[in-house]
């Protein structure tokens, strides 16, 4: 939980900035904004308030406009930060050295949908909910669901996953190709509509997850899926955390193609019951399931899981088959973060992001739970446990520095525990500016290569400087 390491990079010269801002106003009129309120709005994501204001925010409409803006910044060596809707959690969009924020909200068209190929091409500013709305009637959907209504460009940049990665993968598996503006302002296409290619290095996946530090993503070719014939969701409650986690591990080992498995510990379940009025449930360790498939397939998956859960002392399934019941359940899950904050009004919270091989999940979760109890902090556990990924929302009183220190120490222990078990401390939220130390701890020598790749693709360090790789 440290801030970006010091770097030789400094804020751009005042004169250079003035010249650039003037030029952007000439070229883009109202779409180049320097108003304080707009800059503030673009200075941070969610999570810890670690704002840093850009000098100007521009709203491009086309790939060519993005390329032209990047060329100007490249010539003047001014930082450029791509911005979706600002839902990232690790300070990805903070303009640490000022510069230009490129807001993609007006590049929000779905460019094509190819039914027979199960893919589509969208501009980077399309949000995932917008995409699924536009796909209505095609029988297709885009499954990746990180909770927030993020943009596809932002999700690609942070290699987002979410509640149903256990079945559909993360953005790594679902981005087929990209249009990218390079650091010197050229438009490059990576990947493409072909389902596989072994031509050249995999720049698509290199760019996915690069957090705007290697290129600016302007269009994304995405994989789509046929809407399942049947969907049903169920809730199962357990006497203790271990039983719940063990159930998940066995289900994964059997390869049951569950679409989502979410774990909430007793504290988190209690928070959700209060916050989202889930009064039919008890504040006990709980698993939320969702099943996708044919009618018969869904029934079979559910029966198998139900008997596994029963073996581990799980309750009978409480079903949510109607769409409105399901969305109530998942909304409660997505609001888990706010529910956790509501447990202790006045406190602030931040999320940890540990992910371990599933064979170590029980150890990792139970040791973490014991650790939380020791600290006396409130830190509910919630997780996409089918992937071995779980989060704590660690609450602390901002007025009491020693409590914040305790919270950060807990988060650091969670990270180290995950790494020691062969996992990672950033399962899905990315590195941004907060996890640079962890990157070094996990990757060692490979970080040098990442830095070399960064220098090769962005020699003047103008693309989102201070993020993803240490300087």
């Amino acid at each position, binding site marked *: 939980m440290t801030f970006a390491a010091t770097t030789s990079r400094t804020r751009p010269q005042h004169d250079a900035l003035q010249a650039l801002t003037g030029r952007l106003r000439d070229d883009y009129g109202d779409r180049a904004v320097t108003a304080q309120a707009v800059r503030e709005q673009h200075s941070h994501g969610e999570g810890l308030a670690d704002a840093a204001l850009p000098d100007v925010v521009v709203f491009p409409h086309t790939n060519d406009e993005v390329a032209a803006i990047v060329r100007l910044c490249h010539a003047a060596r001014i930082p450029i930060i791509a911005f979706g809707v600002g839902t990232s959690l690790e300070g990805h969009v903070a303009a640490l050295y000022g510069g230009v924020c490129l807001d993609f909200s007006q590049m929000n068209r779905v460019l094509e949908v190819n039914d*027979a190929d199960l893919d589509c091409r969208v501009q980077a500013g399309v949000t995932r909910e917008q995409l699924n709305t536009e796909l209505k009637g095609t029988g297709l959907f885009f499954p990746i669901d990180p909770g927030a209504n993020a943009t596809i460009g932002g999700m690609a940049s942070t290699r987002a996953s979410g509640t149903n990665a256990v079945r559909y993968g993360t953005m790594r598996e679902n981005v087929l190709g990209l249009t990218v503006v390079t650091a010197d302002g050229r438009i490059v296409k990576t990947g493409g509509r072909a389902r596989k290619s072994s031509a050249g290095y995999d720049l698509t996946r290199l760019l996915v997850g690069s957090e705007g530090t290697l290129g600016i993503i302007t269009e994304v070719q995405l994989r789509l899926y046929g809407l399942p014939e049947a969907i049903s969701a169920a809730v199962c409650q357990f006497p203790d955390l271990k039983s719940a986690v063990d159930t998940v591990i066995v289900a994964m080992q059997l390869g049951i193609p569950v679409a989502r498995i979410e774990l909430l510990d007793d504290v988190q379940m209690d928070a959700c019951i209060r916050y989202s009025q889930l009064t039919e449930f008890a504040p006990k360790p709980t698993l939320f399931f969702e099943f996708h498939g044919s009618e018969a397939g869904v029934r079979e998956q559910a029966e198998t899981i139900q008997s596994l859960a029963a073996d581990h002392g799980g309750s009978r399934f409480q079903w949510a088959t109607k769409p409105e019941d399901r969305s109530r359940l998942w909304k409660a899950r997505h609001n888990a973060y706010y529910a956790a904050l509501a447990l202790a009004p006045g406190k602030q919270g931040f999320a940890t992001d540990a992910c371990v091989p599933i064979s170590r999940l029980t150890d990792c979760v139970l040791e973490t739970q014991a650790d939380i109890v020791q600290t006396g902090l409130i830190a509910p556990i919630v997780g996409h446990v089918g992937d071995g990924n779980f989060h704590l929302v660690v609450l602390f009183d901002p007025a009491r520095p020693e409590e914040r220190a305790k919270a950060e120490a807990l988060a650091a222990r969670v990270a180290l525990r995950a790494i020691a078990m062969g996992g990672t401390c950033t399962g899905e939220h990315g590195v941004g500016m907060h996890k640079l130390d962890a990157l070094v701890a996990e990757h060692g020598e490979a970080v040098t290569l990442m830095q070399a790749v960064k220098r090769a693709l962005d020699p003047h360090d103008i693309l989102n400087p201070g993020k993803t790789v240490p300087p």
Partner: protein
Amino acid sequence: MLDPTFTSALARLVPPAALLTAAEDTRPYECDGLTLYREQPGAVLLPDTEAQVVEILRLCHAARVPVVARGAGTSLSGGALPIAQGVVLSLAKFRRILAIDPLARTAIVQPGVRNLAISEAAAAYGLFYAPDPSSQIACSIGGNVAENAGGVHCLKYGLTVHNVRKVRAVLITGEIVEFGGGALDAPGYDLLALITGSEGLLAVITEITVKLLPKPQLAQVALAAFDELEQAGAAVGAVIGAGIIPGGLEMMDREATRAVEQFVHADYPLDAAAVLLVEADGTPVEVAAEMADIIAVLKASGATEVRVSENEAQRLLYWSGRKAAFPAVGRISPDYYCIDGTIPRAALPRVLRQIETWAQEFGLPCANVFHAGDGNLHPLILFDANKPGDKQRTIAFGDRILELCIEVGGTITGEHGVGVEKIAGMCAQFAPAELERFLGVKRAFDAEGLLNPGKAVPTLARCAEFGRMHVHGGQLAHPELPRF
């Protein structure tokens, strides 16, 4: 020939039997599965420890001697073609399966382990390794990672890049690096994806952690016959468009089925213009539901006959022809040239029709057997290298097919890699700005360009040469493509 002082320095790093320098000893390494290209290496090294690999690379780096890493030598694009002034670094002795974790469903293996050997070892836990290139009995997992190998099951279970968790490798400077991790996602740049498919240009792989999948309880295959090639192509799109992702979706045209029928006697419908093999796998309930959907789509797409395997023996029989297609074609023609383009599935009917027309124009039979679900074509152009002009026409025909693949939004190689074979095609597929990114990545890993030089990514100067050649020959097929 290598400098004798360099060779004697090599001799100090490995046991005597692990260094080959005599011409008769290095000859078996002169080519890989693409026998059109041959070159004898200055030396062949067969280390059996990572420490030896580190020392060898350090020495080669210091002496600026190029290194070509080699697995089982089954590459179809010349990825392991040696360099006369360089060494071949064979990983053949790295053949141990180090660990299997059935709970995490992963296996840690050395790069020389055969692809199929992983599934054989994992079978004891009811698990398997999904990517299954046709050469899986022979090809090594290290080579699979280097080439991002595919196979029949990749449609549903992904390519090598989707099935590898972690790679340990040695850089040309001798440093050991690890990419990826034990968990779902590793932070920072996805160097694991970058090393996968990098054709030995970035690092030498010494250890791989692969994902294992639970073996499906049941698999069943439908064999569908079509009177028109285009109908079969359209049926592929219809199956996928219906939201079904089969365990395998393969096509063979008449030329191919007739060749394999003599070989495997699987009772293929020989009058059909094309045959599709569509597999459903999962629990019996899932398979029954999916198979019903598949049959309905195939019939609606104009299939004249649909047979469904009734037992495992029959399923394997239906697949036997597909799996044996290459050797079967090898029996009916003195030579064949396998093309490996990939296109968006929706373009299949158009591209297949065009290949059929060209086959007549060029006067060369062409058998199509391929991963239809992925849109990954493998036209086999049949020719006789001893007939004057046949080879030239074959290459021209192949180039036309690959140019068409690019034109419809596809790629010049779906799974075989670029190697030396398609280095010119890279200039047609990628624009200068894109190739510059590739070269930048290469420099970040291997600034001196010592790892497998001359393969996979062409220099801009080389592309300029190719570009001129094309224009001078007056055969610039698609002037709208970026060239320079």
